[in-house]
């Protein structure tokens, strides 16, 4: 998917346009829902406890997988960078390209067939799917650091470890965070597909709604998932701006 380049925005009213729009859409959604008379099938899904459960499952899947990706892929990217071998680099970039070409739905279903269905399968395929983009962003972010800056730090007497922590990682952080943001948004989408392998989430509503031909169920599921994706992307953008080193 797209890699965000992360532009700094003013922290004004503009910042809150996105969540405001989401709130308006959700309010309209529930107002519309209030005008409908629901049949028994619709009542079974369109109630607060069902909606909250599916939303929670969806968020857990998204957040846990992204956290795992951050814990695994960033150190792996740092390691790949520090070996400084052309072969490792070519391997990582090549693997990243193939990973990008792989359809998420294929990964999820393959893992379900060779292993089992359920939450943990979905979690692992999410981690596997988002691992490569974050790894690649970490590697390219570190490589992008200006050579002269690195040299100057070494000349000041910093050890390679100090250069990594104080110079290279802070300078690479916008690119690394942009990778994580992409991974988060990805996960919301892939977590929707997780319904195919019985891993819950809001995808359940979409699939059930389609199967039982209940349009309100589809609409609520789809709009909730879309709102989560938009809000997570917005929040990640906010975090990106807040943690960016001052000088950048």
């Amino acid at each position, binding site marked *: *998917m*797209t890699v965000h380049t992360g532009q700094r925005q003013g922290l004004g009213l503009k910042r809150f346009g*996105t969540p405001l729009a989401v709130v308006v859409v959700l309010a309209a959604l529930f107002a519309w829902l209030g005008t409908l008379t629901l049949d028994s099938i619709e009542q079974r899904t369109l109630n607060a406890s069902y909606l909250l459960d599916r939303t929670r499952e969806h968020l857990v899947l998204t957040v846990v997988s992204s956290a795992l990706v951050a814990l695994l892929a960033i150190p792996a990217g740092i390691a790949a960078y520090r070996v400084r071998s052309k072969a490792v680099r070519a391997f990582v970039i090549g693997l990243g*390209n*193939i990973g*990008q*070409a*792989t*359809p*998420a*739905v*294929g*990964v999820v*279903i*393959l893992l*379900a*067939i*060779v292993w089992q*269905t359920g939450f943990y399968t979905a979690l692992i395929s999410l981690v596997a799917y988002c691992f490569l983009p974050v790894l690649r962003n970490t590697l390219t972010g570190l490589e992008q650091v200006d050579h002269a800056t690195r040299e100057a730090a070494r000349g000041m007497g910093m050890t390679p470890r100090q250069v990594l922590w104080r110079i290279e990682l802070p300078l690479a952080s916008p690119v690394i965070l942009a990778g994580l943001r992409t991974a988060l*948004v990805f996960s*919301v*989408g892939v977590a*929707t*597909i997780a319904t*195919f*392998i019985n891993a819950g989430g809001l*995808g359940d509503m*979409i*699939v059930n*709604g*389609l199967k039982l031909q209940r*349009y309100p169920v*589809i*609409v609520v*599921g*789809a*709009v909730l*998932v*879309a709102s989560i*994706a*938009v809000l*997570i*992307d917005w929040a990640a953008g906010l975090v990106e701006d807040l943690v960016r080193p001052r000088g950048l």
Partner: protein
Amino acid sequence: MSGSLDVFLARRWEDLVTLTLQHLAVVALSLAIATVLGVLLGLLVWDRNVPRSAVLTAAGIAITIPSLALLALLSPVLGLGWAPTVVSLVFYSLLPIVRNTVVGLREVPAHLVESARGMGMTPVRTLLSIQLPLAWPVIVTGIRVAAQLTVGIAAIAAYVAGPGLGLYIFKGLSSLGSVNALNFTLTGTICVVLLALVIDGAFVLIARYSTSRGLRV
């Protein structure tokens, strides 16, 4: 547990070729529509600040919407099959194409546009023979990104009976536990990956031969 892959392939390779061609066709059709719409939209907004940022922000938000959600919303209105698939693929292709059109047009040096106008070219002529050719390499890159995106999304569209290789991926799931479940999903997934890599390779050639001669490196 799984039937042997070579027997599976020998029996179904014709089927597989058809699905691959369908997948390619739906991606190509969507990209063609998205390119026309995206470039037009880019042309409308690239030199106006407010519409430009409005369009780019809207497209940036739109692309975060999970594809299954969009397909599900479209299917009651557009039915099943090609229609919801093409509409959603066009939808997701617009962001990279519009963004790159805007970036490409903004990168054209102002003095070139000015000299073209000074030579007596009309604005339309300037656009067609100066601005678009110079922005084209960037626009093609946008279409290439959109192509990678849509090949993967088209696989999910099989859930609303869309054309292409997603059919095999889902067939594996629906026959879970049977002899050929793994074969179906595995061949479907691998063919999607291969198709994506071939399309990406093709774009290197498309970019080269559709770029104006003076710009080729």
